[in-house]
């Protein structure tokens, strides 16, 4: 599915270009651990991330959004596909082709923020050791320079530098998430992959972290790949959103486009399912029938067709490609141009 995605004038604007990314996990059984099947966690997806923007991956659990992020940063080995990254020097390099050792220098340019503020910090290391680790492994600075850098980073994420000798267990969830952000910022990366960074936090703390992330983006010119299942958060933070369903992309668009005039029936259902923020907006919901498809044994054709009210015979056999629709949006639906969808 070679979609020409890096547009908006000159192709140079995209920092990361994912083309035909595939990640299958084998299901192993039996005495000889034979592979008896595959979980198609990410099944041929393409999108790009432009410099300075926040691109969000949304979808329900098991849709492959986290796997996508982890494959991009090579925490998982992608099964197939290209991950073209534009380096600081302006070169384009396919990260998927690199060995893990070759990958190491590029890790300075892309870092990750994790969901669980408890398990993402090594409980046996203090804050200084945690934040300075990326500096240490890349051999950046002397130990006193690293200490200054950690102090600076702590101030950047609004924590007291004096606390750098303390251990993670002394901090609350929101504070730990700030520590995780400081670690990600340590090597001045250009791309940050945030995997559900606020879903482990109390709601009253979420806004602090989101605001911090948006401020840092403005101050440091960061690019975010933001993975979340929380559509409200996604709407708040993103420039563009990729909607995923069972390992495939349903639709790509700006939050306004997707939330106000979805093109894909799944997007519409998803948006309609989000609870309204005020009781006066209670409406009859568009309740999606049936269950999410099993990525180990997905249906034929469009994965969404068994639940889709608009499905035709074509949908049952033919996989819809992700194509540019008439008004310049990307949708993978055979009937995108025929059907009218509204979210309430």
């Amino acid at each position: 599915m070679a979609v020409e995605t890096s547009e908006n004038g000159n192709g140079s604007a995209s920092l990361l270009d994912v083309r035909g990314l595939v990640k299958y996990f084998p299901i192993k059984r039996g005495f000889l651990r034979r592979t008896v099947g595959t979980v198609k966690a990410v099944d041929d997806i393409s999108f790009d991330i432009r410099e300075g923007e926040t691109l969000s991956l949304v979808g329900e659990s098991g849709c492959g959004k986290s796997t996508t992020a982890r494959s991009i940063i090579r925490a998982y080995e992608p099964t197939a596909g290209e991950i073209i990254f534009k380096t600081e020097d302006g070169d384009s390099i396919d990260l998927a082709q690199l060995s893990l050792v070759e990958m190491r220098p590029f890790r300075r340019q892309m870092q990750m923020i994790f969901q669980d503020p408890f398990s993402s910090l090594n409980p046996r290391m203090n804050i200084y050791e945690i934040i300075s680790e990326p500096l240490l492994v890349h051999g950046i600075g002397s130990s006193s320079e690293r200490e200054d850098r950690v102090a600076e980073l702590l101030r950047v994420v609004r924590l007291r530098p004096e606390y750098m000798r303390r251990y993670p267990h002394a901090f609350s969830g929101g504070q730990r998430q700030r520590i995780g952000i400081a670690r990600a910022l340590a090597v001045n990366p250009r791309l940050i992959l945030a995997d559900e960074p606020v879903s482990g936090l109390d709601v009253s703390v979420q806004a602090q972290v989101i605001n911090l992330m948006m401020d840092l983006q403005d101050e440091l010119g960061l690019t975010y790949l933001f993975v979340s299942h929380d559509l409200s958060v996604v709407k708040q933070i993103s420039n563009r959103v990729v909607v995923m369903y069972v390992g495939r992309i349903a639709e790509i668009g700006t939050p306004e486009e997707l939330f106000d005039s979805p093109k894909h029936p799944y997007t519409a259902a998803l948006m309609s399912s989000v609870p309204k923020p005020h009781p006066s907006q209670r409406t009859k919901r568009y309740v999606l029938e049936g269950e999410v498809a099993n990525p180990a044994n997905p249906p034929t054709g469009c994965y969404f067709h068994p639940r889709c009210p608009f499905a035709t015979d074509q949908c049952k056999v033919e996989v819809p490609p992700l194509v540019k629709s008439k008004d310049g949006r990307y949708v993978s639906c055979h009937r995108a141009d025929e059907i009218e969808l509204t979210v309430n």
Partner: protein
Amino acid sequence: MLAFFIRRIIYAIIAMWAVSVISFVIINLPAGDFVTTYIATQLATGNLILEAEAESLREHYGLNDPVYVQYAKWFTRILRGQLGFSFEFTEPVRIVLERNLLNTLLLGTFTVVFIWVVAIPIGIYSAVKQYSVGDYVATFLGFLGLGIPDFLIGLVALWLILDLTGFLATGLYSVEYRTAAWSFAKMWDLAKHLILPVAILGTAGTAALIRVTRANLLDELKKPYVTTARAKGLTEWQLIMKYPVRYALNPVISLTAYVLPFIISGSVVLSFVLDLPTIGRDFLKALTAQDIYLSGAVILFSGWLTIIGTFVSDLLLAWVDPRIRLEED
């Protein structure tokens, strides 16, 4: 379930083969071959064996063959039921084993029953009334039972009984019943004699089972399905017995098949202290006399029994757990 079953059978066969190799190695470890041992025993009883005769014996048993051929021959003989000759008892190994088989199985079975009957209620109580005095007592006794070697308990018990009553509580039968035919009187005599060894043999198992039951049940009691059951209006005991106890005991009960062979092999040491007429006692005699065919056979069969027991336990566990039983593959 079928794939699971086949996988388990393959494991079991490999394990049984591994045990046979180990047994063979043990048989062949002592310096010299068994003909040397045989000559020595014969000499001790006053029989002189000529060098030629020894050589023909070696030929007959294939002792001049390469090791793997010896193993193959030995193994095929075992499979045909020819277990060899016991020098210590001067009769075929098979006869020696059969003589005390019943006693051994009786002792093992009663011990398993004893362990379940004592340990499971205590384990359940201990978990449900966590941190109560009874729980502490049970936990401490459990540790004690695990920490004291069987033979020590046996010795102390024997000594105390001897000291207090002047009665030497050894053996499984009183002298007058030792060779008598089975009768109610003999069974009653056996029952009296079984109490001490069963209790001692069961101590460690009971202690272990109390700990396992308690730990499993404590884990289960925290699970959300217990809260669901409570919210239905069940009484505390009804719900504990129906749900978490079922969960906690599934693995425990399925272990029955696995525990029996362990108890039989574990009875070796106690049989020695209490002079019980079991295969274990014969085994120990065979070991000290380097009676290789008998000891090899015991090691082989207790190993095989255990492997079969493990296999049956796994199947039972799979059977009681619908998640495994109904797995499609």
